[in-house]
């Protein structure tokens, strides 16, 4: 991985945390499970950006490529929700 592939991942994760801290309401384990499952499906559908090599798509299984930045954003959101206790607000 060269810096141009890593930096968007870090930025998306940090932005995910920022917006994740604003998520509240009815967020329980079922919602989190749905988000993770649908998020992984969406990451596969979206795929990596052009000229990006993902860990799976670039090195382990070239035909199976996920969008790193989408997954980074998704897990950032989950971390942000966990930090602020999203489900209890």
């Amino acid at each position, binding site marked *: 991985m060269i810096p141009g592939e890593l930096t968007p991942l870090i930025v998306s994760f940090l*932005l995910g945390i920022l917006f994740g801290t*604003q998520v509240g309401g*009815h967020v329980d384990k079922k919602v989190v499970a749905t988000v993770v499952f649908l998020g992984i499906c969406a990451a596969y559908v979206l795929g990596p950006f052009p000229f990006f090599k993902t860990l799976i798509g670039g090195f382990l299984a070239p035909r199976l490529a996920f969008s790193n930045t989408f997954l980074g954003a998704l897990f950032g959101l989950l971390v942000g929700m966990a930090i602020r206790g999203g489900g209890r607000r």
Partner: protein
Amino acid sequence: MIDIKALRGIIAVVAIGIVAAAVSIALVNMTGKVNPGVSQLYNSLAYLVAPNNLATWVYDWRGFDTLIESLVIYVGSFGSVLALGRGIVKLKEYSEKETYEGAAEPRPLDTSEVSLPVILRLFGVPAAILVTAYAIFVVTGSSTSGGGGFQCGVILSSAYLLAAILYGRKYMPLKFTPRFMVGLACAGMAGYTLLGFPGLVTTGYFLYNVGADVWKIAPPIVKAIFGLPWMLKLELAEGVFFSSPGTIPPINVSEAFNVAGCLILLFFAFLYGWSEGEKK
């Protein structure tokens, strides 16, 4: 008696026909007379900056134009909320008597979760979270793929609107506070403006992309700071190139903050309204 609806239809068809004929004649007359102008130069240099040529055009060579557009959104949003939303946004300094007499009292939009269909109740929150993740995905791929700050802001505000319409204020999953939205918009506008200064200080050109440095005039250390984190290896038919979009991605993130903050602020003020005295 003349059928007004039928008459309107005929007028519309005639008007569309006239416009279509005028555009077609103009296009035919343009054959062989189009000067590529600066486009040729732009296209020959664009790949040195970012794989997404459009991002290079909009945020690098026309970066100043885009900055002013961002300012228009910023001023427009805050102006609308404060002027048209008078009576909705209740500032501490103004009392209830100072609102326009006879102005219709805004009725905050609120829905009951019980009235929602099952599928919306179950998938509303995941959809809002996934759309937020998609918005972040779009802004981080601004220089390499289709997307950018404007799109991210609009997608993020649609996530908010979706959640607002489905759940109402009480059960709202995206609890963006007014303070957060104002802060987001201000940080975005300030970030975009401040990103023009490295170019101004080191090269004399405001908003010059010091990270990409197409004209080789930026100091190497400044080029490394802004360019290296976004450096990509482009494997093209013409060869292998290392290019960096430089300040384009951070500008896009700032733009996204500005657009998202402004649009969500508008939605919030006109859907619910708030007063400064309430919980931040």
